[in-house]
């Protein structure tokens, strides 16, 4: 092995370490986090072990988020799956001062105003949870299985547009992943490219 090869291997190791900050791939353990919700209550991922958990990155100002809330699509999904015993955590990782960042009060207002049905809306102003998952978009969806492994990450559905009219003709990847998981089947589409606004990190 010559010096060049060794150098190449070293640089790829370093590059690999840097890259580790990116999204943990499907199949790996879901990073734990602990965040407070709109009511000031603390939620950590580990407390939901043994259940399916959906993570949804959120920004009330983002037209792509509005697409799914304005049409009632997101609320319907939240209602259906929390009704089936699934934990649904909506996370706002936008930094204070940027559009979409919610205070506890504002978050409560959005929840009642938009008639949402998630288990909790978590505030992540430091972007800790967002960065741990490499969440870059709103909406950005993650499904975690009862063993604490990531089984789906990516877009909410197959049509990357801000147009609510496209919802009816698109495939909802989260719904498919959850239905397949609940039926004990392997998940057909486990990774997609998320679409939407960027998360405004600190």
């Amino acid at each position, binding site marked *: 092995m010559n010096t060049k090869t060794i150098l*190449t291997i070293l640089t790829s190791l370093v590059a690999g370490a840097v890259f580790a900050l990116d999204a943990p791939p499907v199949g790996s353990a879901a990073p734990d986090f602990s965040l407070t919700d709109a009511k000031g209550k603390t939620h950590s991922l580990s407390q939901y072990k043994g259940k399916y958990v959906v993570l949804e990155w959120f920004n009330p100002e983002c037209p792509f988020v509005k697409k799914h809330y304005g049409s009632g699509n997101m609320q319907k999904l939240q209602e259906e799956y929390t009704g089936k015993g699934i934990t649904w955590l909506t996370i706002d990782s936008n930094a204070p001062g940027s559009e979409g960042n919610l205070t506890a009060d504002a978050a409560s207002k959005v929840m009642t105003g938009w008639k949402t049905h998630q288990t909790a809306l978590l505030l992540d102003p430091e972007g800790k949870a*967002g960065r741990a998952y490499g969440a870059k978009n709103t909406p950005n969806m993650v499904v975690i299985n009862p063993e604490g492994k990531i089984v789906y990450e990516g877009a909410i559905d197959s049509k990357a*547009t801000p*147009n609510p009219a496209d919802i009816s003709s698109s495939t909802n990847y989260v719904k498919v992943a959850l239905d397949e998981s609940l039926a004990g089947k392997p998940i057909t589409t486990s990774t*997609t*490219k998320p*679409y939407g606004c960027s*998360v405004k990190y600190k």
Partner: protein
Amino acid sequence: MKSGVRLAAYAVVCVSIFVLPSSGQSQTYKGKELVKAELLADTNAIVPGKPFAIGLLLRMAPGWHTYWKFSGDAGLPTEIKWKLPPGWKVGEIQWPIPLKTTDPGDIQTYGYQDEVLLVQEIAPSAAVSDSTVKLVAEANWLVCEKICIPGNASLELELPRSTTSAPANAEIFARYRRLLPRDWPGGKVASANWRRTGSDLRLNVKSATLANYPAVDFYPLPQGDTVVGHPRVESRSESEIIFRVPIESASPAGAGSSIDGLVVLAQHPNGDDRMAWRTEAPMIASAGSVPTRGIFTFLFFGFLGGIILNLMPCVLPVISLKIFGFIQHAGQSRQKILRSGIAFAGGIFAWFIGLALLLIALKAAGREITWGGFQFTNPYFVLALSVIVLVFALDLFGVFEISLPQSVTRRLLSSSSGQHEAASFFQGLFATVLATPCTAPFLGTALGFAFAQSPAIILLMFVAIAAGMSAPYLLLCAQPAWLRFLPKPGPWMLHVKQFMGFLLLATLLFLLYVLGAQRGLEGAIWASCFLLIISIACWMKGAFVLPTASVAKRTIVLALMFVLVLASGIYFIGGKFRSTNVASADSRLRGDWQAFTPERLQADLDEGHSVFVDFTAAWCLTCKFNEANVLESNAVREAFQRHAIVKLKADWTSGDPVITKLLQRFGRPGVPLYVLYPGKSEEPIVFPELLTKGIILEKLETASRTVASQ
């Protein structure tokens, strides 16, 4: 004349600015104008049937941006939907090289700030009835600063119909055209190589140009469901850079072994001087003639080419041996003839399928592959072939008889005994090995097509060629009645056999000529010395290793032969021949031909010359034939002089990789290739593999006419 037209054009442009209706629309958000959109054409009028360019101009408020074709981690590409009159066609959006932005959280996006012009080519139908044409486009975009706002506009542009047109909006179109990615330069300028390890792709770019650009980046353009991570520079030197592109799709293997994208070069990241080279998944970009014919047409060409291979001068001696075999078989049972014919065809198939598998394996390993040159550019292959040809010739002369170790007579050539299937098989194999330098007409194009295809098609193509080459024999075997037309066997056959030996010696001369071209006179002489020793060894076998001789005597002679061949091989080939230098192609230039280099071609074109390039090799008989009968004929020489065309010779005898790249760009797996570059801006003209004086003269006329009329 030229400047007159241009002046008139400017006048029209100036007028048209005031005449044409403005069609702009604005996107406002909270009372602020975010985006102003309008359509611009690069012409002031529509000439039926004449394509023109139209662009969507988006002007963004400071700090706001719209997105590239691949938006990156967030955002959406701008969309344009056209409503055009029936029969009109619109091309794809020509995306300028975007700016790359990295936001907190390692969010990378590709887009445009301040302003962008998204140009599309429009081809009007040949008949336009209305006196003015309204072009309507529905544009959708996403504009983001901190927050993202979707925008859309229904835009229209009215243009008058006319018989002539003049350029419009020239400055802005030129400005954005400069920002378009270029095709991969190829040749000596830059090479690109993809490698896959696990879920990572690695793109290795080698180019001296890199030294002039401190900022080099790779912007991916993933297709379909492929999810890419952020490309990163893994290592970089003066003239080489390696990018690592992680594939994050659930099944990275489905993404293939490369992805499209741009290698972006600039003085600093997002510099205004940025330029980009487009990488394409199969790096064999065809310039000029793109093969559009279907696969069956190419398979048929392969089959035809296979038949024609039989008549090629390098194959004929071996083929005549087969015919000779048929003459002998004429009196024998039909079954026997059939078996022999099938075995012969089997040999042909075995070689071609073996070659196909080897090429597929090399291609999978990311190596560049080519046809004839694949073997013949290697002097040791030529040398090995020389030995085989010589040994066969000596056998035909009766100096000795080739026999397989077991003295059970499994004769390869004089197959008077029963088991000639094996012999037939090897004859078929041998005939095919010799056929490789003769890339017959059709075959070149067909193989060029096949090499850019999937392994299955490469294999199919070789099978088609093998089928073509063996077709005559199989036919003759299936219908042995036709053998009647061949003469009766008799003592004359011994003389024919010996005469065939001379044909093989002629082939040997050709091979020595190739070796000489590759390694100079000395190389040819050292190779000949080795061949002489081989001849002596063969003679020793014929004279002393006789069935009547004692086992001890036979063993001693065989051992001596072995030592002799080994020692001379080590001395002449391993020592003398190996130390000869690769002969310079310049020494083979004659007359007014100059040696080809991509730089010389570019320089000549820059000076406004038309350039003819002859891609040739010493071992390429088709090339030699074309050169002697067409290119060096008085009529053609004179025509070249009259039109002041620069003649460049690209010599591929030793497999120069720069020339290999160029051959691939033209979709050719080997030589010959003849290309006329009429001028800097014209498409090169590609000639067929078998030249005629007529076709050269005709193309020279038309090419010089188009150049003159500009």
